[in-house]
């Protein structure tokens, strides 16, 4: 019995030592992702992109920081798309896994409370996808890779007025999805300020898991708008566009970055051809690193990466760059994390696959957006690029 105990304790100690030995040469980054729950696809895309990046860098011998090569270790945790779970997950990553920085959560519902925790514990967190201003507001340790709703809203308004020559519009959005709701409201305000009060003829909502939109669409179609603004997730977009066509609507749709998934076209098919949406990057006709990313991702996971994948890639890239900016890791967690925070602030320009970005004082990126059009082949072709004034 005694011997067994001794053996056990020795092996335990040995394991702990071994872990520490490894830890000395690795950089741990936590991923707080929505792998189950409402939006498993988002978590999956993020994870895939991160895996690809890790394979790249580790394949090349690791990340060079201050003249020393470190292997990357990514720790993926599932936050079940629940706020409370996102908090425990964040704490787990910070304290138990001792990560240097955290990527995610993607969805605002999880990103806001998780951001609070990361900020309190002084760990850099970057949310690839969250667009709610509250996520980073007054939180020096929290960043994001996506542009904000107040930027994307005007993009859609200006484009529609210019390209569609639209005088009236209608909006259909997801009431329980804060992203969709926020964007819809910004759009409405802006469009009415430009085209006069009442020019948004219908402002309708639906629930997150709804599948039938016929009543809302009937109402919208009866109002005869020039186009419908649809700040919705791609799976719902597919259903909404199809149903609108079935109800006899032949007009234009304008979408937002949440459309940007390769799945959109598998789900929607020919009904979506020719539609426009604003997004972070245009996959079709992409060049350079972006093109390479898309093609490799496609080869590996057999579908075109969506915006979450691209943003995760960039978010992770930003963090890695910040780590490099520290000019060398000390191995002391608190100090390194602080150094990374400073490294983030030191980024003047980062050229990611979703465009060039730098961060303002709130930790939000200043970057350009594009409007793409869906081609007959189901590719998202570049139409116009719009940069913040």
């Amino acid at each position, binding site marked *: 019995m005694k011997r067994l105990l001794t053996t056990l304790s020795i092996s335990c100690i040995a394991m702990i030592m071994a872990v520490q030995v490894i830890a000395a040469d690795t950089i741990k980054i936590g991923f707080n992702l929505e792998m189950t729950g409402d939006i498993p696809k988002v978590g999956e895309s993020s994870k895939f992109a991160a895996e690809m990046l890790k394979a790249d860098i580790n394949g090349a011998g690791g990340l060079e920081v201050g003249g020393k090569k470190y292997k990357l270790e990514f720790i993926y*945790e599932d936050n079940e798309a629940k*706020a409370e779970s996102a908090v425990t997950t964040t704490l787990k990553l*910070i304290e138990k896994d001792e990560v240097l920085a955290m990527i995610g959560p993607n969805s605002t519902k999880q990103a806001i409370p998780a951001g609070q925790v990361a900020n309190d514990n002084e760990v850099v967190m970057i949310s690839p996808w969250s667009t709610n201003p*509250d996520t980073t507001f007054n939180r020096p340790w929290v960043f994001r890779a996506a542009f904000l709703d107040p930027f994307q809203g005007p993009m859609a308004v200006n484009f529609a007025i210019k390209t569609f020559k639209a005088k009236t519009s209608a909006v259909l959005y997801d*009431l329980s999805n804060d992203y969709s709701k926020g964007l819809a409201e910004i759009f409405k305000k802006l469009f009415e300020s430009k085209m006069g009060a009442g020019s948004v003829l219908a402002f309708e909502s639906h629930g997150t898991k709804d599948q039938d939109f016929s009543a809302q669409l009937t109402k919208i179609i009866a109002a005869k708008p020039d186009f419908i603004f649809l700040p919705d997730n791609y799976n719902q977009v597919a259903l909404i566009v199809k149903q609108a066509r079935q109800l006899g609507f032949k007009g234009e749709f304008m979408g937002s970055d949440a459309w940007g998934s390769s799945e959109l076209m598998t789900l929607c098919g020919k009904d979506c051809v020719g539609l426009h949406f604003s997004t972070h990057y245009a996959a079709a006709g992409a060049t350079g690193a972006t093109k390479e990313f898309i093609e490799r991702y496609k080869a590996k996971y057999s579908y075109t990466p969506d915006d979450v994948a691209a943003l995760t890639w960039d978010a992770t890239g930003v963090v890695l760059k910040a780590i490099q900016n520290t000019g060398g890791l000390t191995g002391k967690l608190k100090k390194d994390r602080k150094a990374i925070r400073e490294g983030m602030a030191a980024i003047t320009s980062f050229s990611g696959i979703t465009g060039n970005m730098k961060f303002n004082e709130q930790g939000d990126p200043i970057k350009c957006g594009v409007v793409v059009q869906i081609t007959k082949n189901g590719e998202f072709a570049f139409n116009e690029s719009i940069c913040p004034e």
Partner: protein
Amino acid sequence: MLRRYSVHLSLATVGGLIVYLAHQEYISLYIMSVLMFMGVNIIMSTSLNLVNGYMGEFSCGHGGFMCVGAYVSSLLGVWLFAGDKVFGAPLLNPKYTLYAFPLLILVGGIAAALAGLLVAIPSYKTRGDYLAIITLASNYIIISVIENIGAIGGSRGFMGMKQLINAMGKSVDLPWMPIWVFLFTVFCIWLMRRYISSTFGKGVIAICQDEVAAEIMSVNTNKIKTITFMVSSGMAGIAGGLFAYILGYVNPGSFNILKSTEVLVMVYLGGMGSLSGSVLSAILFTILLELLRPLQIVKWIVIPLLLIILMQFRPEGIMGNRELGDIFPKLKKFYRFK
């Protein structure tokens, strides 16, 4: 004498120890947060057990009441003590937060108890699965109401509660959230035990076993039902308030049917009509969820599977309708369980 107070003493010791360890940072924040959510889950499962186990109804919209409590106590707290976009400057000096905090949580509880009337009044006429629908519908209604009030963020959620926690920490440097969660958990269990063990509260069990006989034998069934629903939803409201302050952020989506079913599972896992069963199952369930986190998606196959298998062996839940004192009679020396 010592025996009589043994439970009080041991509770005080455990509480003190947790606070001390947390304060000295021997317990990591991660463990602490799991413990705090465990407290919230304990309150949720015991309070639902009051309705589903003791009274024999089938309420499956408990998340809705939690939502009411969470919103009311956080809105009130932020309005009174914290600067906010919606409410502007705080009305009262933040340094009083510490004294007002339990009141904030209790007000949330009272608001949830009032929302409980939404279910209690139809329950006079309806029972069983029809009542289940009423609770379910009330859950949807509560969430929908909050989503429709843009001023408090709607589906964007509401935040700012962190400022209160910080203010408390400034007054006296202690980890306040764990302390409050611990105190309120003990308070809720204590309240429930007293209610259920009084002759007055035994009317609840009488309703469960034979409502007609209860009414004929002078139990005012409508009154008892109302009180029980209100106590139960009020406690859910307290749990909601704590939940909101732990997270520092609330969102109506956190209190949907999934939340409600999670609580349901805890109640039935522990055993209907067993207070200690509910506490035990809430603890086990929280730990299980945390331990199996590395399994990611597979976790949500393994946990239901475990529960199904458990039900096959113990079709009455972990404790059935017995209490700890019935299983370990020696404990009765220290405490009267019924």
